[in-house]
């Protein structure tokens, strides 16, 4: 297991958001977590990124290392866990280039950085065209590309994607997912994606989990989940 999560519990004040969920992801996998709004999907990712504190009793390891011992920025820079947050959270006042550069803040290999930049531009040629444009002025699809590109720059052992389809037209959505699949194939990057758009996510991933009210209720191969009547009823609109 590359990433293993056991009994993850998170609370916001008195409200318990995650009631002890456990799952694991192997190297090179694409895994998705689907669930309704408020089920705790984003919280799961935030807990892995250490943005929200996990309750005692939680165990999380990444490549055999105890995740709980890492600060949020070290999770990215030392372990190579990159996180594309919900709503993308680009730095709108920075240019595209600066956004990409910032993601390499802790990296000390200028050569590697230059190579990675080339690769990002190869995957998303649009970004190259807009290199010096302020990120805030780009279209939604371009912003999503930049968000993925940024994650690519900061660390590529595993990418955590939070609702990448949000606010995108279906066609754009597809192209974004395609390019991520490309990254997964060429770079061997493991991908964990959480989505409300269950169909898209399950088509894209190899395995999937269903999260409901802070608990994992179902898991399995994505194609079997797609066929699961319960999933169909609740998440696939029939």
């Amino acid at each position, binding site marked *: 297991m590359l990433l293993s999560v056991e009994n993850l519990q998170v609370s916001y004040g008195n409200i318990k958001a995650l009631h002890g969920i456990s799952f694991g992801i192997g190297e090179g996998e694409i895994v998705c977590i689907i669930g309704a709004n408020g089920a705790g999907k984003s919280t799961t990712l935030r807990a892995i990124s250490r943005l929200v504190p996990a309750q005692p009793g939680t165990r999380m390891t990444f490549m055999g290392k105890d995740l709980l011992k890492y600060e*949020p920025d070290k999770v*990215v*820079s030392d372990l190579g866990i990159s996180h594309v947050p919900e709503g993308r959270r*680009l730095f709108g*006042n*920075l240019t595209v280039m600066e956004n990409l*550069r910032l993601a*390499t803040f802790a990296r000390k290999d200028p050569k590697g950085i230059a190579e990675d930049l080339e690769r990002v531009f190869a995957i998303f040629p649009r970004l190259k065209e807009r290199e010096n444009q302020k990120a805030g002025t780009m279209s939604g699809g371009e912003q999503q590309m930049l968000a993925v590109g940024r994650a690519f720059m*900061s660390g590529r052992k595993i990418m955590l994607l939070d609702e990448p389809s949000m606010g995108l037209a279906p066609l754009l959505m597809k192209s974004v997912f395609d390019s991520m699949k490309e990254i997964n194939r060429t770079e061997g990057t493991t991908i964990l994606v959480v989505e409300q758009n269950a169909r898209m996510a399950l088509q894209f991933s190899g395995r999937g989990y269903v999260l409901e009210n802070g608990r994992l209720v179902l898991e399995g191969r994505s194609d079997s989940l797609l066929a699961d009547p319960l999933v169909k009823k609740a998440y696939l609109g029939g």
Partner: protein
Amino acid sequence: MAIFLQNLVNSLQWGSFYALIALGYSMVYSILMLFNFAHGDIFMVGAYIGVGVSFGLLALTSSGILAIPNWLILVMTILISMFLTSFVGMIVERVGYRPLRNAPRASAAITGLMIGIILETGNLILLGARRISFPSLIETATYDIGGVFLTNKKIMIVAVSLLLTLALHQFIRRTKWGMAMRAMSFDFVAVPLMGVPVNKVIALTFGIGSALAAAAGILFGIAYPVLDPYMGVLFGWKAFVAAILGGRGSILGATLAGFLLGFTEIFVAMIFPSTLRDLIAYSIILLILTFRPHGFFGEPYSAQLRL
């Protein structure tokens, strides 16, 4: 005309203090959205450290250990004091602000206010009530240019403060640390996801802001060589006005607003009876904000960024 020019020169000097202090204020404010009410007192601490350092260097030269001219002592004083004061700023951040990172912003502001009082009182306890005069490292030379009087100190002060502003601007624009600061002022939460060590960036911000305040303190000591423990209070509050007036996250804005505040105070005193100076100067600021409610360079931001 000569009077006007003379006042212009005067206000340039006066404004450069507001600008330098406002810069530090503004940097912290744009990243943490925090009113660093201790900043005025860090300016005071910087000035006192400057006195200490310059006396130390003077003692070294007079005892023959160091052989450097006075202007070099001044340069070294500024650099060493900036360096030392930056640690004061970082300590203040570590002790007073970091534990309150997730608290309401106003609570942190109150902590800052209290740290300021502690710094003032601490100074009073350590050094006693006497006022300290800044050693005159360079002789004042007065030049009369067509009825406008300039001094070498005035020129130096304006030049150094502009230089520092420019340097800071370049730092913010060109370096990755500056980039991280700008990113933080846009979206604080997303920054650690880039692998940026947030706490280090914040500490650096406080350090740089405090170093600028120290520079301002020393320049202040050169221009107005009377230091007392409470010298930073009013300055702090006025720089606070300038920093916010300049607009969030804008180095240029803070600098301009600092100079503008200096201009307003001086020119109001020139045109109107000087007894009414504060009345008119702050009425102008009030009017500016009534009609331009987001400062000069700031953008209207969402109502959720609140105190």
